[in-house]
């Protein structure tokens, strides 16, 4: 948004990356078994961190926008290609179940010397390479059903504020549910 001059971009990127990496690692995202705990209900750290982060950032954006310190409508929103997003998500889910990392967390795993994380990151590069080489095959799917920079509340036909509120309530509900389930499930040592 041009708050900071261009030349500082890379330094800022580095600093934000450090913050990102630190909060991921410190919460335990460098361990694939801890991450996978969410799916087997023995450790809901991913769910907690993920949703807390999302609602914190969202709340911040809402309030800063209201106070005129930033402009919500200027924020970049990923273009939405329906089929491509769903297919990509399913492929990633499959990769998630096998590898136990996602790209960001695998880099923190690399940082603390997890060999499986290194292999996973290597796989990422190979995966992107494969995709690019086979792009002509995927092109149709990749570019189909472009809905533009769509937002979820527009699609659901509600106000952004209502959606924000519902998301917060849903997140708090999920935290409560997670704590409840965690108590019932047998602890897994890892």
């Amino acid at each position, binding site marked *: 948004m041009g708050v900071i001059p261009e030349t500082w971009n890379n330094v800022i990127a580095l600093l934000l990356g450090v913050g990102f990496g630190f909060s991921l690692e410190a919460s335990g995202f460098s361990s694939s078994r801890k991450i996978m705990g969410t799916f087997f209900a023995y450790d809901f750290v991913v769910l907690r961190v993920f949703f807390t982060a999302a609602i914190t950032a969202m709340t911040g954006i809402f309030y800063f926008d209201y106070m005129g310190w930033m402009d919500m409508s200027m924020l970049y929103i990923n273009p939405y290609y329906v089929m491509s997003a769903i297919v990509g998500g399913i492929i990633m889910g499959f990769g998630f179940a096998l590898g136990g990392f996602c790209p960001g967390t695998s880099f923190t795993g690399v940082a603390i010397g997890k060999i499986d994380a290194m292999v996973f990151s290597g796989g990422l590069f190979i995966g992107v390479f494969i995709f690019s080489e086979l792009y002509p095959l995927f092109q149709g799917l990749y570019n189909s059903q472009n809905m533009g920079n769509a937002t979820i509340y527009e699609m659901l036909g509600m106000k952004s*504020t209502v959606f924000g509120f519902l998301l917060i309530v849903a997140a708090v509900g999920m935290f409560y549910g997670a704590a409840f389930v965690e108590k019932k499930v047998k602890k897994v040592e890892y």
Partner: protein
Amino acid sequence: MNKRYLLLAGIIIALGVGILFMPAKDTAKQTQPALLLAAIDDPSRFLSTDDITDRLVKKDPALLLIDVRPASQFKTFSIPGAINIPVDSLLSASAQETLNQKEMDKVFYSNADVTSDQAWIISKRTGLQRIYVMQGGVNQWFSTIVKAEKPAETASGSALELYQFRIAACQHFFGSPEMAATPKAGAEKKMVKVVKKASGAASGGGC
């Protein structure tokens, strides 16, 4: 259950309720009046006729000229490659489809630069990006490019260069005046065809 967690849940839900009471941003992409005024005060939206011509000659694919004059005037004369969106239909769905993309520089022009600037202000307010105004409009374009005036003998090198450029550009668009009669008819028709399509792709050269 930890009491502190209850407190934190309370805080975040209270903040959420606060969000609920914020004025909804349904007019989301609107540029606020103060910001719009600052944008109006900033002359960087104006592109000179020579710049535009240069990009037209080079067939810049990222340039989309938009003629905001009434259709009748557009038919009489328009800059090659331009598409017609009269200012009255600026907000129509089809016009917005053409305008609301970030891939191209959309340059509004009218006879002078008043109507085009009005179109720019409204568009800027609705949040369109990469929009510009051609300074001086088609009147200026016509008098500088088509009827380029030869600079005085004593003029500086750059003025002469500019003149040469303008002459070359005009020949690029219309051919030389001697052979104007027959081959031009085809070129003109082609131009009109481009208009009918009114597709975003019609950017390069009409001629």
